[in-house]
């Protein structure tokens, strides 16, 4: 079973990471193209049209190779995660259906005009099509993130014991979940940073090669300030994410900080090295062997109060720690007992229904309802299973924050140089930084997803379903086979994309 879970998770992670190589550039570069074409529309200068068409080709290559890679994730839901797929019912299906319809009608209609429509439709209609393609792509992302947000914070549903499915009772609670909305803005604005980094990196390469310098500078002139807006909004929404995580997924926050023992006036670890010997419930070892802390910040970010108590991993397992609303959180063991009651009550309910025993049905239904919020804990065998991979979450979070913030510096310098009309070519290190920024931006973006998804383990649906109850009873060997097939397929497609893209970039504007 452990092999099966490991490989199923690895396969999902591989596909999601591969899919996420394409999405940020589509969402980020799309807006940049929209701004460039708007400049063409307003100024009428052919140079802007040429610049727009060049970046549109890069956008097109990325879009073509990336299109439908997300569908593979849906294949996996039906095969590898069938228990999960059944259990979530229409809650996951509805947003994905909306996404599919929107993506098909908006993106596929307007993207055709975007590429085929030059000189065939009016300038205004073409510009509108470009913006609608970008808007459509972003709206598609919204529905995917609504589905993901629900997994992190399940609301707006009731559990139907007859069908063993969660049924949506409040569409707007699901669609406007604070986690989903914050996640959407954080994700989309971070994609703007990736788009800007790609545009700046490629333009820097042209400047270093002394080719198409005017157009490369004009591209940076758009991408750098747009990148500043992107990174500032990403930081702002990242703060919102931290706040939401503290309220809804405190274990993830504790893992992000390597925090085992909770404290009031909790500091934020700016830089740190985890002590590899630290274990759950071990009060002897020091969690961090090296650390630079910023006092009070974690309490403030998590609870908007510098004196607030931030629970650590051990507090969350032991329960009974002080909370903002004065409630007393249950311990992991209490939640496991409650979860066991819920799962057992569901079995009893089904049996009683078959035997037409209304008294037991009613009684078991009451027990199920009373304990349903801990349903997933009924599958937890050892409380250490409730702790995510602390090292991966901790380091991915730091990588995201530190290197993500570095983009603010890079974009600001480039904007300042442009504003002061300082030649970029004199500062080759800056141009090299721009090129290095492309892979770094992708790594930062992927790190964000690692924090979000590894940090919430073992939950597929927070508190309701862990990975080990969500996975299908498959042979691990069949999952390994498809994992290898995906590795080969993705590598070939990635090589195809990169070679086409590099060839197109070398051709120039």
């Amino acid at each position: 079973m452990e092999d099966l879970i490991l490989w199923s998770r690895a396969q999902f992670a591989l596909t999601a990471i591969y899919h996420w190589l394409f999405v940020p550039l589509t969402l980020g570069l799309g807006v940049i193209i929209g701004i460039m074409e708007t400049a063409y529309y307003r100024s009428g200068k052919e140079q802007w049209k040429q610049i727009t068409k060049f970046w549109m080709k890069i956008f097109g290559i990325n879009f073509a190779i990336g299109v439908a890679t997300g569908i593979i994730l849906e294949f996996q839901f039906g095969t590898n995660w069938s228990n999960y797929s059944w259990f979530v019912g229409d809650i996951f299906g509805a947003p994905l259906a909306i996404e599919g319809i929107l993506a098909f009608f908006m993106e596929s209609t307007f993207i055709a005009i975007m590429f085929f429509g030059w000189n065939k439709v009016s300038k205004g209609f073409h510009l509108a099509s470009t913006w609608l393609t970008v808007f459509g792509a972003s709206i598609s992302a919204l529905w995917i993130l609504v589905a993901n947000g629900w997994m992190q914070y399940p609301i707006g549903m009731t559990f139907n014991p007859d069908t063993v499915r969660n049924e949506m009772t409040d569409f707007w609670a699901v669609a406007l979940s604070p986690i989903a909305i914050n996640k959407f803005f954080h994700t989309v604005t971070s994609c703007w940073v990736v788009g800007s980094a790609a545009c700046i990196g490629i333009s820097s390469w042209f400047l270093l090669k002394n080719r198409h310098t005017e157009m490369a500078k004009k591209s940076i002139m758009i991408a750098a300030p747009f990148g500043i807006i992107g990174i500032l909004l990403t930081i702002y929404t990242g703060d919102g994410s931290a706040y939401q995580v503290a309220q809804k997924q405190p274990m993830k926050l504790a893992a992000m900080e390597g925090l085992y023992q909770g404290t009031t006036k909790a500091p934020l670890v700016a830089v740190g090295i985890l002590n590899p010997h630290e274990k759950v419930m071990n009060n002897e070892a020091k969690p961090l062997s090296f650390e630079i802390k910023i006092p009070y910040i974690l309490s403030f970010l998590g609870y908007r109060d510098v004196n607030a108590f931030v629970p650590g991993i051990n507090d969350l397992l032991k329960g009974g720690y002080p909370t903002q609303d004065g409630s007393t959180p249950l311990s992991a063991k209490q939640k496991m007992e409650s979860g066991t009651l819920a799962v057992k009550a569901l079995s009893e309910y089904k049996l009683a229904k078959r035997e037409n025993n209304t008294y037991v049905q009613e009684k078991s239904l009451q027990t199920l309802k009373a304990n349903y919020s801990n349903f997933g804990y009924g599958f937890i065998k050892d409380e250490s299973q409730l702790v995510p991979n602390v090292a991966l979450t901790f380091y991915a979070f730091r990588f995201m924050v530190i290197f993500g913030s570095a983009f603010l510096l890079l974009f600001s310098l480039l904007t300042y140089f442009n504003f002061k009309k300082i030649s970029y070519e004199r500062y080759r290190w800056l141009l090299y930084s721009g090129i290095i920024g492309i892979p770094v931006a992708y790594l930062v973006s992927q790190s964000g997803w690692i924090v979000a998804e590894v940090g919430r383990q073992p939950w597929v649906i927070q508190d309701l379903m862990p990975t080990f109850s969500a996975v299908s009873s498959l042979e691990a060997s069949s999952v390994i086979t498809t994992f290898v097939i995906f590795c080969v397929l993705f590598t070939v497609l990635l090589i195809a994309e990169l070679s086409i893209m590099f060839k197109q970039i070398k051709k120039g504007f």
Partner: protein
Amino acid sequence: MNVLKKIFNFYYQGFRSMTLGKTLWLIILIKLFIMFAILKIFFFPNFLSSKADGENEKANYIISEMEKRTNK
């Protein structure tokens, strides 16, 4: 009818005048073929449908799977 003809011509001429786009479409079609004609059919069947028929049976199968994995 005239509008439909215009739309058809728009796409027809657009596809005909593609250069790089032809390569990209070829990649898209190969990818979709691999995904839907090979991967989906041979490697990613609907697992639950292979184990149970009908909604009620599927629900019972899910419960039996859950019972196997409880902590007791």
